[in-house]
């Protein structure tokens, strides 16, 4: 995309609303003085739009934090619950994403895919020995990996719809058809925003490269694998019908193929049901 279009897109996302359920919950929770902090955190962590917008604020140069903040929990510790609540409320005040968009992109299914990828990414990280303390970074990367899709569906619905249709009809990866119709991909858009908003470089890279598996990087590998597992298990749907088998380096990382890893993870139904219980509550 041209620089002008990039600027337009960034300005557009500033005003883009979050998902209906989290908007409703934020309004509800912020109207109750006895709301528990963990409920607020959970709502924000279940919404890619709220999450990325709050990370954007806390990571802005104005707070001069010595290291980038990559999770909502850390944000609360640094900047205080009330400010996080007020930020969430200010995002909620923008409105809410419509469930019927012009691109015919199902936002509920998208959200389910994002949330389950987030949970799976954390599970995979912990499986490789990452401590619980660090695994929230993996959760966020999983949650935000496809953020660019919801942006494209809202920003350029006509062309995104064409990309979705061709991907579905010809069974080719969505990021390929996005490039054809939009001149960019959701990964590039996600990277553009994450970079502009000064998010953690590891997160920027994980979003940018979540379709390439040829990097020797644990965060990227976990996002790649979690994304394929979520698709294979049909936990929601984010527009891409292609499930990619694990390339050699991912197999080496988890010492299993995609199917073997899914079996080895055991009963994953709670990953879906927990996400659904939020979406449908």
């Amino acid at each position, binding site marked *: 995309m041209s620089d002008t279009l990039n600027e337009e897109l960034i300005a557009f996302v500033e005003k883009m609303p979050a998902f209906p359920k989290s908007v409703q919950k934020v309004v509800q929770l912020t109207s109750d003085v006895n709301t528990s902090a*963990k409920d607020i955190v959970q709502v924000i962590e279940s919404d890619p739009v709220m999450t990325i917008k709050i990370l954007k604020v806390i990571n802005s140069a*104005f707070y*001069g934090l010595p290291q980038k903040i990559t999770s909502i929990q850390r944000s609360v510790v640094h*900047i205080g619950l009330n400010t996080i609540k007020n930020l969430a409320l200010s995002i909620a005040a923008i409105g809410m994403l419509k469930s019927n968009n012009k691109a015919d992109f199902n936002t509920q299914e998208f959200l389910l895919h994002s949330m389950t990828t987030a949970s799976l990414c954390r599970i995979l990280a912990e499986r490789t020995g990452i401590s*619980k303390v660090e695994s929230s970074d993996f959760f966020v990367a999983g949650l935000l990996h496809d953020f660019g899709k919801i942006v494209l569906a809202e920003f350029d619905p006509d062309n995104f719809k064409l990309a979705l249709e061709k991907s579905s009809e010809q069974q080719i990866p969505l990021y390929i058809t996005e490039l054809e119709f939009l001149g960019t991909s959701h990964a590039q858009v996600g990277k553009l925003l994450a970079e502009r908003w000064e998010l953690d470089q590891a997160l920027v890279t994980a979003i940018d490269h979540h379709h390439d598996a040829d990097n020797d990087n644990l965060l990227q590998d976990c996002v790649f694998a979690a994304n394929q597992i979520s698709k294979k298990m049909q936990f929601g749907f984010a527009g891409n019908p292609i499930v990619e088998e694990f390339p050699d380096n991912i197999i080496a990382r988890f010492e299993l193929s995609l199917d073997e890893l899914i079996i080895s993870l055991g009963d994953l139904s709670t990953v879906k049901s927990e996400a659904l219980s939020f979406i449908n509550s």
Partner: protein
Amino acid sequence: MKFKFWGVRGSIATPGPNTIKYGGNTTCIEITTDDNDLIILDAGTGIHLIGQELLKQLPISAHIFITHTHWDHIQGLPFFSPIFIPGNDITLYGGLDPVTNEGIERALGVQLQYSYFPIREAELNANIHYNTIKPGESISIGNAKITPILLSHPVLNFGYRIDCDGQSIFFTGDYEPVFNIYDPNDNEYNEYQSFIDVKQAEIILAMKDVDALIIDSSYTSEEYIAKKGWGHGTYDSAINLASMANAKRLFFTHHEPTRTDIQLEHIHKNLVQNNPNINFEMTLAKEGIDILL
């Protein structure tokens, strides 16, 4: 460097017979460096009195650092007389509001509106400057170095460390030590606790070895149970911080508005008795007395 409390009360000014000894103005601390540079921390109602003193030595140059923009820390600004007098240089420092993206000019702008005050910001005759500052980035005023750090309160709040002429002061503004929002049985408990521990270490480092540590100590530990999450600390949390930071002298401030002089002294007596092994002096912040470091 010397300093003086002009306002020690939290939330609302409390004049009257029960607060006559320690004072009833809301937060304001005056710091004067050896070179006579004037630094003011917060602009509660106490700043009105500094303004009256300063009228004797015009023109003045004042550097006002706002910890946060709750009323009791800014409500004296419109009554700080030097802002109306040409030739005075007044700089207001403070953080960016994360929700509205407004700089520290909001502290005056929000009050100097027709509905609330007869004079608009544009009508102030002094040279007023605004400096929206970032945590961790020091500001120099003469020989003094002032460094803000983000501290937990319901609104963006800076603690300030002032280093000058080999001496140091740290003021928390309003501050409640961060607590774990999860139950010990929750999966997230340990993770959250580790984030708190990192932040706590950063705060202790910012306070390390200060000559005077001035801390929001609104509540007793018993009172705190019902006030958790309100954004204020306790006498015990202040003592804990002072011990860990190896402070030389601890000042309890932001006195709870209903607290009488007698109650304050009773609390202080108990604290001294119950903490025999601390190696710093504990003092109740009291308005109007010069404290030499």
